[in-house]
């Protein structure tokens, strides 16, 4: 590529962080190039809206080719990407890494739950002496949450809005879209939780309930994990990238696998090098500033692979913390069968795909009194109802007395919609045992060193997973139901694998101290002033609240700052 004038900014990645960065920077008038490792992707043209499972191979079940099922939006990826491996260090716990290869990244199939981090979440070390504090407060990020939610479109308003729960910030009036009515089983679950003294809140999900910016409101059909051709569900490919392109300031190159940041004269980055995944060609692009938003671990991989004569441990790594303090969310789940729901009349339980309720962490008081054997909280996500049957529907036969023949149909009808599941999503505290580094031997199909993960859950997390299961077992019992899976309350058995919840963050954390962090509170590298990290890598802690909304709010804030600095000529 012959490039006469350098771009102002090159952004690596097009997911939550990259998409928001491109949107802000292009709107602010900067000339931006976005490089995406995967192929171009247009949800309007490719999303299987309304398709039923019998139209898909194998009724849409998971396979190694499509690990979340046939209709899941993920392209060329999942837990493995062909030709692009990662490894787990010998003797360590397994770490799982979900990657797609498509424009928009994981926002095309994400879980959409959009919770704000609370004031405690920004100062965890100050509260209990564990982990580190953030170099900012909730109040500093709050206006950026407001602006992000206005663009993204987030539910949480309506009848139960403003619950005023501890460390669970609400949004200012007028921002949130109304959460749809509760489904039948959600009314029941909410009653069950409330009988345990646990308050229930309206779901905050990135699914719009009224038309906005050329997007249609949710029409309560078709699972969001497939993507959304009507743009009701937030994807960068429908919400952020198109308006950024409309400015004329954004160019996008897909199938461009970036593997190094290149240094110019002095301590400044000059651009990046990528491999064209179609041709295998290596290409170099120049820009005045480089933004990494390739996902927490991939951004760290690029920094580590950018080592050179002067930066032998990788670029931007004078602190030695690139790749360190990798975190995921603590996960444990349980399923139950609730006879109370048997034989209820058919109802449309599709709703907005996500649950319409969730349970914020309720145990701050107990933790303050030292009554719980784990220091941080978790929230609960729920599921159930008469959703579109997949192959799992066959399991309903086990609740009835007719193994086959006459009577089996009636049993199937009676038990359809009687199953519920409960999933805990908890905060993991960063520790020295969880990190990513370059594998000394393994390379991907392009010859680039791959990541090797080290993982070890600590007692904080294992005890929390045990508590999740205890809570679920108690709830199912209170509802007169039976646990059908996930009843073992041993935390080791309960806890999901590292990375399995797909909330991996950390690896290039922000901080106030260049000796213990990779970037400052603007996502700017301490070592290389025109190098920025605008993805989940910068999170110094990983509260129970799902990280994507915060990644976007930070990217919006930090990209705005970058644009301002560029305008002043400081980049």
């Amino acid at each position, binding site marked *: 590529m012959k490039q006469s004038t350098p771009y102002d900014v090159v952004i690596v990645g097009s997911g939550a962080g990259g998409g928001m960065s491109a949107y802000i920077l292009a709107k602010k008038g900067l000339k931006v190039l976005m490089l995406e490792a*995967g*192929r171009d992707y247009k949800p309007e043209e490719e*999303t*299987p809206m309304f398709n*039923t499972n*019998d139209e898909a*191979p*194998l*009724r*849409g*079940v998971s*396979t*190694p*080719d499509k690990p979340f099922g*046939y209709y899941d939006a993920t*392209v*060329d990826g999942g837990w493995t990407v*062909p030709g692009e491996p990662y490894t787990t260090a010998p003797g360590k716990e397994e770490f799982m890494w979900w990657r797609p*290869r498509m424009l928009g990244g994981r926002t095309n199939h994400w879980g959409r739950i959009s919770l704000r981090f609370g004031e405690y979440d920004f100062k965890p070390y100050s509260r209990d002496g564990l982990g580190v504090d953030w170099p900012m407060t909730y109040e500093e990020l709050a206006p950026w949450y407001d602006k992000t939610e206005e663009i993204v479109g987030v539910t949480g308003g309506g009848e139960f809005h403003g619950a005023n729960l501890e460390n669970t910030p609400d949004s200012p009036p007028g921002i949130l879209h109304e959460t*749809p*009515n509760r*489904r*039948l089983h959600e*009314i029941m679950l909410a009653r069950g939780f409330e009988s345990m003294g646990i308050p229930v809140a309206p779901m905050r999900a990135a699914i719009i309930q009224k038309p906005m910016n050329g997007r249609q409101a949710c*029409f*309560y*059909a078709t699972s969001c994990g497939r993507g959304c051709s009507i743009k009701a569900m937030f994807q960068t490919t429908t919400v952020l990238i198109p308006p950024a392109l409309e400015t004329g300031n954004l160019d996008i190159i897909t199938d461009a696998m970036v593997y190094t940041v290149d240094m110019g004269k002095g301590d400044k980055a000059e651009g990046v090098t990528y491999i064209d*995944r*179609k041709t295998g060609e290596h290409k170099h692009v120049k820009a005045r500033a480089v933004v990494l938003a390739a996902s927490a671990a991939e951004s760290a991989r690029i920094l580590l692979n950018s080592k050179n004569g002067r930066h032998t441990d990788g670029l931007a790594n004078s602190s030695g913390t690139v790749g360190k303090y990798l975190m995921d969310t603590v996960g444990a789940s349980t399923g139950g069968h609730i006879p*109370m729901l048997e034989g*209820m*009349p*058919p*109802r*449309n*339980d*599709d*709703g907005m795909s996500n649950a319409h309720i969730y349970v914020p962490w309720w145990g701050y008081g107990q933790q303050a009194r030292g009554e719980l054997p784990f220091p941080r909280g978790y929230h609960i996500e729920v599921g159930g109802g*008469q*959703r*579109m*049957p*997949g*192959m*799992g*529907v*066959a399991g*309903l*036969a086990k609740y009835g007395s007719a*193994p*086959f*023949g006459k009577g*089996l*149909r009636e049993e*199937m*009808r009676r038990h*359809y*919609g009687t199953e519920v599941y409960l999933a805990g999503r908890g905060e993991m505290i960063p520790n020295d045992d969880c990190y990513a580094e370059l594998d000394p031997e393994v390379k991907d199909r392009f010859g680039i060193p791959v990541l090797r993960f080290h993982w070890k859950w600590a007692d904080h997390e294992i005890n929390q997973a045990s508590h999740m299961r205890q809570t679920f077992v108690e709830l199912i019992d209170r*509802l*007169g139901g039976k646990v059908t899976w996930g009843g073992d309350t041993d935390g080791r058995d309960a806890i999901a694998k590292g990375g399995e919840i797909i909330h991996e963050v950390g690896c290039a954390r922000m901080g106030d101290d260049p000796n213990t962090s990779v970037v400052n509170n603007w996502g700017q590298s301490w070592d290389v002033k025109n190098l920025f990290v605008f993805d989940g890598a910068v999170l110094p802690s990983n509260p129970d609240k799902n990280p994507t909304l915060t990644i976007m709010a930070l990217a919006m804030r930090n990209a705005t700052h970058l644009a301002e600095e560029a305008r002043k000529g400081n980049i």
Partner: protein
Amino acid sequence: MSYYTSKIDRRTALKWLSAAAATTLAAPKMVRAATYVKTPNGYGTDPDMLNPTAPWERIMTNRQLQVAAVMTDIILPEEPPHPSPSQIGVPDFINEWVSSPYEQTQKDKKIVLGGLDWIDAVSKSRFGAGYVETPAENQTKIMAEIAKAGNANYKFFDRFRTLTLGGYYTTPAGFKDIGYIGNVPLEHYPGPTDEMKAMLETRMKEIGI
């Protein structure tokens, strides 16, 4: 005797052939980086969402398909207006499943194909006619035996029933039977009716919550 006529038409069968050819010739219709396949003969990591195909060859013999069809209809007999599984092509789905190259379905291949051959043979030796031809009472008799947990062939029954029920209730006909009324666009999401909420309220009160 033919109990079942495959619901797969010639056009669809040709589509499998052309999809298989496309995989081997690497001629994707969209310009993509590559056509990746994690499992040989699978549908790949970037299949066409809007025109899905299960590109692998079908391996069940016609006899196995006939036995399977009879079994699916004993498991879930026709109950007008609800069709039997064989009337809506569930045996073809079972063939698609056991023929698939994926690891998890390969386990079922052994269990299901072995089971189909076994049930046909045992019918012949006990009743003098294969499972398709023997009278309904004999068909039901064998089914009732293997449907008991602990029977040596319970695993076959259980997996086969899972495939039958899963195959059936994932279809629009199955939706009608089981009571799935979603997958329709709505302007407003109503939630349950007041009547349903009242029913639930009564039940919650009964257990004291």
